[in-house]
């Protein structure tokens, strides 16, 4: 679309502008309407892209002097955003800081009130509200799937996926049959960032931080933080976790010692009768894991979980051939006690999975933004597969 500037020299030329306005859609920027046009006045108006050459021809033929004020309106509008606070504008294909994500949770709920509602499930150590999005068409007796991202601060691709999932849900509802069926028949609780304090810390101070940011009582060296995924009451601190507050896998002073993990666990306990599956998103390694990690014992529905993971991995690979390894946590990645997936499973949620997203080490935690879209697209296929399976096997 273009914006023209014309200065009519006399009444005749004013008449020419009048006839232009009566023959096509002209949006006057100044003056507000064609009736206010007078000789020697600066007249600015907007024309649809496909009509602009006709307008130019017409003005030339009529001998009216003009110039193109704005050659491409869209570009000019976009350029405004480039200079202004570009870093705070939300993008699904970039890493967003916490402030931006928080604002986005409000926006997405406000824009899609019949599909999304936002609530707060608790506060982080540093006092930040933990937002959760409930997705789904309202209905009675609906079962739900719980999904969280951002347990570990440095795994930036994880919160990016939760945001992508929400976007896909609102954008494809009513268009994609699977998504529509899922949202009609299930609710999704999406926690975009569990460990908000840690996430903020990776933006402001240390990109490689993993744990929460809570002070550890009695730590001589002033070491900070607990590994949230060693802090759940599932074989707590028995193996694959550290009792040393300075270590990256510190299990905490007690199960659910962290405000963040307690808030998550409380929410799940409160909604236990409706939550039928638990998904937790991490990076990196390209793995799809299920219980148990705190023991080498097999889960009671191990075979079923294994075949779900197998099929979900295949779905994921179908898009870009990204290879995932799947299996029981303890043997596929490493034994580790206190994980949220094991805890949820032992609470009775029999479909419990941990995703470790791209890549396998080339970029590791610092996955380039150019890989956000493909990673999210492929992961979505796996998540939809699992959700659909759960829907077909409600208990």
């Amino acid at each position: 679309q273009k914006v023209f500037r014309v200065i009519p020299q006399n009444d005749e030329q004013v008449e020419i502008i009048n006839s232009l306005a009566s023959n096509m859609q002209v949006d006057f920027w100044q003056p507000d309407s064609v009736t206010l046009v007078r000789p020697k006045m600066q007249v600015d108006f907007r024309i649809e892209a496909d009509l602009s050459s006709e307008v130019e021809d017409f003005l030339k033929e009529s001998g009216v002097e003009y110039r193109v004020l704005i050659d491409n309106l869209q570009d000019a509008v976009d350029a405004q955003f480039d200079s202004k606070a570009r870093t705070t504008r939300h993008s699904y294909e970039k890493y967003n800081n916490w402030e931006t994500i928080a604002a986005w949770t409000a926006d997405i709920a406000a824009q899609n009130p019949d599909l999304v509602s936002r609530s707060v499930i608790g506060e982080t150590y540093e006092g930040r509200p933990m937002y959760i999005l409930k997705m789904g068409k309202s209905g009675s007796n609906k079962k739900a799937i719980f999904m969280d991202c951002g347990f570990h601060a440095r795994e930036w691709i994880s919160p990016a996926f939760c945001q992508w999932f929400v976007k896909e849900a609102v954008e494809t509802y009513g268009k994609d049959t699977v998504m529509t069926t899922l949202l009609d028949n299930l609710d999704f609780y999406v926690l975009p960032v569990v460990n908000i304090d840690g996430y903020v810390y990776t933006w402001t101070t240390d990109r490689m931080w993993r744990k929460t940011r809570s002070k550890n009582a009695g730590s001589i060296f002033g070491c900070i933080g607990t590994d949230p995924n060693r802090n759940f009451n599932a074989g707590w601190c028995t193996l694959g976790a550290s009792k040393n507050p300075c270590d990256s896998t510190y299990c905490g002073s007690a199960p659910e010692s962290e405000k963040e993990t307690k808030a998550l666990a409380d929410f799940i306990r409160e909604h236990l009768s409706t939550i039928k599956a638990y998904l937790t998103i991490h990076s990196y390694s390209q793995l799809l894991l299920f219980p148990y990690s705190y023991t080498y014992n097999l889960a009671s529905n191990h075979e079923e979980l294994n075949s779900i993971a197998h099929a979900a991995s295949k779905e994921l690979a179908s898009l870009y051939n990204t290879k995932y390894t799947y299996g029981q946590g303890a043997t596929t990645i490493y034994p580790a006690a206190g994980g949220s997936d094991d805890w949820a499973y032992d609470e009775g949620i029999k479909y419990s999975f941990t995703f470790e997203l791209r890549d396998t080490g080339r970029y590791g935690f610092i996955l380039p933004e150019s890989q956000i879209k493909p990673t999210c697209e492929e992961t979505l296929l796996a998540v939809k597969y699992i959700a659909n399976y759960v829907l077909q096997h409600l208990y």
Partner: protein
Amino acid sequence: DIDDVGHKYYLELVLEDVLDKDSTVNCTAEVLYHLGNKNIAPDVQFTLEGELKNTEEADNIFYSRIKSLEKELVAENIPDSHGNVPPEMEPVRLLAWVASGYVIWQNSTENTKFQLAQIKRVKQVKRSDEYLEFDYTILLHEMVSQEIIPWQMTVLWHPQHGVQVTQDSRQPKHASQ
């Protein structure tokens, strides 16, 4: 299990060219982790079934570019927090990756899994001979403990003479900040 010696692993693997996914070479290897003494690097024997790609042209281009720099190369945070690597830094990153492979080998046991997480800082060191020398501070990610370990390494490189890590040392945790 080899009594009184250690654990030996027989591997069949496929090497894939990082810069050309379709270029692969089969490889067989034997890795021996020594019993007890954690300060000895595992023994590695390997056989390549085929040839590795010739990288002479790219090597020479990089070599000439660095040699012609007016000031010694200095850079930080490769990749940056968002995963970006300026194109001219890509060979510097690949060099660090190769050199870190040596450091990882020297410090690996059956209970470790290391990856290069990031180059915190790289500084070119002026030399009077034909070699290029870089002083790197890298961050290694150890998967089992989930620790990020800063490591200093001095890397020598020449297109015809390959990569050498002449000096390396583990750094205290705060050294990376």
